[in-house]
Every structure is written in structure tokens, then in C-alpha cells.
């Protein structure tokens, strides 16, 4: 839907929404946001990390985890291998430790281009570890969602990831580890109904799709007429489900503010952090 159309030799990119044609380099410089209509096109996990973390501060972790095919689900192996080839990733989420304006954060970034960002055992484990690293390293945890929901091909194992990740969020709650979630396009179903919705602070990119069930399922459930903004970030915001809708270019500074405001109490506890000024023990 929001995959930009390409014209010519990649020198031009057409906005998926308003169809305006942009120079590819300008489009990328503008963080893949249409300068004409403001539509936020999806970006890769790698690019998201580049524009969120301080230069060269991100250290990827758990990059060796990959899914098996525990249910022997038809066509799953082929789909996964295809996604690996396409994205260069082993699963739908990239995790690690980085810094935002000098402050350490535990980060997870979903990549929609890997099987629709779906959550199976690996994505569930990596999000859980991201929250646990926040606990362990005494730093805020930030998760960027971009997902259609649980990965059907891993059956009930995927449903259990909803519980596992929510449990990690609960442990962060009890330990006063700030947990911030950013809904990007799309944030749906099993992910929305688990760790994403229990974050301390929820931000969203404009016009991201946000909802419980795909529109087809909703229609089956008897939803015949829905408002134009149904299952959008704006709809969720207007119903009190999101703290703030933030444009992509402003996300880093908003996250930075929140990390400082909510995570200040952690700085004294962060051992071996050179940037800690107040808590330097030696």
C-alpha cells in the first residue's frame, strides 16, 4: 500500500499516497516522507536505527537467532528463506543497545519487509530480551513496531509470545524501567494486543495503520460501515490509546526528551557508563 512506486532508473520515486514524483535522493533525505502530502512511507529497520541512534552508537545483539519450522507448516521454510534473501535479516526485528543524545537505550526495531513484521518465537524472544536488557543495564527500553501481528506459521507458539513479551513489560513496570513504544505503519493484532499497548508511553507516526483485526476480519465480524480514519493512528489517538502522534523527523528529539524525563533516576545505577555525570562512582 505504501510501497513507493519507482520510475526510471531509481532516480525518481512516486508517493504511494498523492502520486507526486520526487527525486529519489531528496525523498530519502526527507526520511521517505512525502514533501507534498506528508505521507510516511515505511523504512527499513537499519534506516530507522540510523535516524534514531547517535552515530555509530548502536550495537546489534542476538542477531544470530532464527526461526525453525516447529509445526512443519506448509510453505513456511520457503517464505522465510525468501524473506531472508530479500532483507538480509534473519527475522522481523533488529535489537541491540544504542544511545540517544548520549543516553543509553535498549532498542528493538521491527522491519515490515520481513514477513510483514510478524511475531513468531524469534521476534517474541528478541523483544523480551530488549525489555530484559533495559532491566539489566538500567536503561529505558524503546520498541518500534511495524507488524501485521502474530506469525500464523508458528501457531500457538506465536500466541505465547504475546504473553512472554507482556511478562517482560510487567517486570519493567515493577522495576521502574521506562518502556516506550512507537507505533509505525502498521501496528496490528497480536502485537498491538500485547507488549505494544502496555508501554509507559506510546507514540505513533502519522497515518500509521493501528488496529486489532485486519479490516477483512472486521468486516466478517459485521463491521459494514466504518469511519474513514478507522484503524489509523489518529483514530487510536482520538480514542485515548496513544500519547502523541509525532512526525518522523521529530521522533528522535521526542524520544530523547522522554528518556531524560523518565529515565533520569537510572543514571546513577548505570555502571561503567562514561557519559554518566551524576553517578560516577570512581
Amino acid at each position, binding site marked *: 500500500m505504501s510501497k513507493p512506486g519507482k520510475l526510471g532508473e531509481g532516480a525518481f520515486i512516486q508517493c504511494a499516497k498523492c502520486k507526486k514524483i520526487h527525486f529519489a535522493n531528496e525523498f530519502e533525505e526527507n526520511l521517505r516522507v512525502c514533501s507534498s502530502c506528508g505521507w510516511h512511507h515505511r523504512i527499513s529497520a537499519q534506516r530507522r536505527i540510523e535516524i534514531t541512534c547517535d552515530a555509530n552508537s548502536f550495537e546489534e545483539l542476538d*542477531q544470530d*537467532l*532464527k*526461526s*525453525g519450522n*516447529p*509445526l512443519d*507448516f*506448509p510453505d513456511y521454510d520457503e517464505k522465510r528463506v525468501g524473506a531472508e534473501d530479500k532483507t538480509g535479516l*534473519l527475522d522481523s526485528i533488529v535489537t541491540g543497545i544504542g544511545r540517544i543524545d548520549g543516553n543509553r537505550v535498549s532498542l528493538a526495531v521491527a522491519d515490515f519487509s520481513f514477513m510483514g513484521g510478524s511475531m*513468531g*518465537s524469534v521476534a*517474541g*524472544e528478541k523483544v*523480551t530480551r530488549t525489555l530484559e536488557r533495559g532491566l539489566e543495564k538500567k536503561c529505558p527500553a524503546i520498541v518500534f513496531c511495524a507488524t501485521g501481528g*502474530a506469525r*500464523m506459521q*508458528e*501457531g*500457538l*507458539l*506465536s*500466541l*505465547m*509470545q*504475546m*504473553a*512472554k513479551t*507482556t*511478562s517482560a*513489560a*510487567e517486570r519493567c*513496570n*515493577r522495576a521502574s524501567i521506562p518502556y516506550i513504544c512507537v507505533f509505525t505503519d502498521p501496528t496490528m*493484532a*497480536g502485537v*498491538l*494486543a*500485547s*507488549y*505494544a*499497548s*502496555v508501554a509507559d508511553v506510546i507514540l505513533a507516526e502519522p497515518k500509521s495503520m493501528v*488496529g*486489532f*483485526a485486519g479490516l*477483512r*476480519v*472486521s468486516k466478517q*465480524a*459485521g*463491521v459494514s460501515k*466504518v*469511519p474513514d480514519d*478507522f*484503524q489509523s493512528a489518529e*483514530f487510536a489517538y482520538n*480514542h*485515548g*490509546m496513544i500519547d502523541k502522534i509525532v512526525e518522523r523527523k521529530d521522533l528522535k528529539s521526542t524520544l530523547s526528551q522522554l528518556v531524560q524525563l523518565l529515565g533520569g533516576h537510572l543514571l546513577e545505577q548505570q555502571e561503567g557508563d562514561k557519559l554518566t555525570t551524576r553517578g560516577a562512582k570512581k
Partner: protein
Amino acid sequence: MANAVPRTLDEWEKPLRDLEDGITKLKAVAVKEKDDSRAADLKYRIQELQRRHDNYLEVMYSQLGPWEKVLVARAPNRPYMLDYVNQVFEGFVELQGDRRYGQDHAIIGGPAKLNGSPVMVVGHQKGRTIQERQLRNFGYARPEGYRKAIRLFELAQRFSMPVVTLVDTPGADAGLEAESRGISEAIAASMLKMFSLTVPIISVIIGEGGSGGAIGIAIANRVLMFEHSIYSVIAPEGCAAILWRKPEMGPQAAEALKVTAESVLSFQLIDQIIPEPTGGAHRDPASAAQSLKVSLLSNLAELSSLSGPELLNDRANRFRNLGVMAIH
């Protein structure tokens, strides 16, 4: 048997009902039969048919495939939450309302006694009559149901009562109203609350364990499944619609999704299977209720040695290691 894949339990059980009808007819004739030798012959034929019926029932139910399990789990005459509540617990008082917005009748609950000790029972309730089905929203709970559950979990915590949840839903309500009032948040918050309790929690899948709507109240120290219940990340028909664009391929999806209690146990995602009477819980609800009671009591007894913090950690650890991965 018909070649077409059965779509309801009724269809699938037709051969059994044909035998039952035959028995009923013979019995009607036998009552009027005056001749002794012919009466004896009829009696023999009735016994023979009954024997065939019983054998057939046993064979059918010992070889249920995933799709047949789906049909049994959804059967309209299968015991629902309140059927179990009435037979397993004493003095159940239904507490209602989420104190936030509204009334939901698909998730219900309240305190009751189990063998003399107070517990908090929360679960999905489906309806049998048309009116009751509508009242229960066909078992699709709305946000208010999960928020009421959260309220009841908090009460259980305050009054140190173990929690028992009975799960039986095709899924949570996905409509416009449910979305407007944050169905996703309600499910997530309910799971979060259950992870924070320091009382024992036991969850039992009694019929359909449908997706997020099910796991929203299935965070427990012990998760049990009735023998012919199902537990799935998505309804088989929904899976078939998304993956193959053919909702009618539900039977194939049920197979691929591994929704049966046996499969789920083999991945260690549940702790125990509660056996059902021959022919399923719907043929002998009292005996199914007795099995449930025995399981609840033995599991609660095992958990009684754990302290509050130990129960909380036990529950977190139980879910922490679920998943199957490889290292690249």
C-alpha cells in the same frame, strides 16, 4: 460416512444418530410385542445395535482429527462456563461491570467456593438460545469484559483468593465499538495484571481457545486443556482466508496450526490434559465437571506450597521459555 468434510458436529455425528434412531424405533416396536420369542429377538437386536453404537462412539472419539476437535470444541451442547461453575463450585456470586464504561456478558466472573475455600472464577460464557447468544455476543468479549476481569483479578489479590479462569471464545470482539474502546489495550492490560498477581492462577481451556481473546485471561501458573478443546493463534477459517484466500480450507488450516490439546502439550505450551468421558464432555457433563474439579484441586494443592513472590516468578518463568528457535 459422507465424503464431504463435515462442517458441524451434527453432520459428523450423523452415523451415530442414525444408530440411535434405529434403537429408538426398535424399542418402540418391542414395547408392543406380545410374542415372547419375537420380543426376545427384538431385545437381542436392540442390544446388538447399542453395542455397535457404543463401539462406534468410542472409535470415533479416540481418533478425532484436528478438524473434528474443532467441531467438538464448538459444539452448542458442549458444557459452557456456567455449567461447570454450577457443578464444580459452590455459592458462586456473579459480580458485574467494569466500573469504566459498560456491561459485557461474554466474560463473566465472581467469587465462589471450591471444596469450601473461596476462589475467584472468571471465564467466557457462550449462549445456547438465540437471545442468550446475542446477550453473550457469541462469546466474543468486548473491552469491558477484559476490564471487568482485571477488576476481579484485583479483588482476588486483595482477598488472597486463588484465581481460576475458564477459556471458551472464538476470539475477542473486533468490531468498530470494540476498537474504539481499545480492545487491544484491554487484552494486553489483562495479561499484564495476571502477571502481577501473587495468588495462584489456573487457566483451563474448556472449549475454544481463540487467539488474543483467549490468552487475555489465560496467564496462569498452570494451563490445562480439556481433551477435545482447541487452542489456536487464529481461527482455522481466518488462517485459511489469509494464507490461501480460501476460508473453506479451515480443516487443512486446523491440521497445519496444530490446535489440539495433544499437539499443544507436545510443545509444552500447556501443563496437563483433562480427560473427557467417551464421546466428549457434551455426552456426560457431570463426569467432565468431576474431572475438572479433581484437576483444579490437585493443581491448587501443588501450588499452595509457593509463597506470593514465588507464584509470581513461577508464572513469569513458565511463559519465559516458550518458543522454538535455532541459532544461525
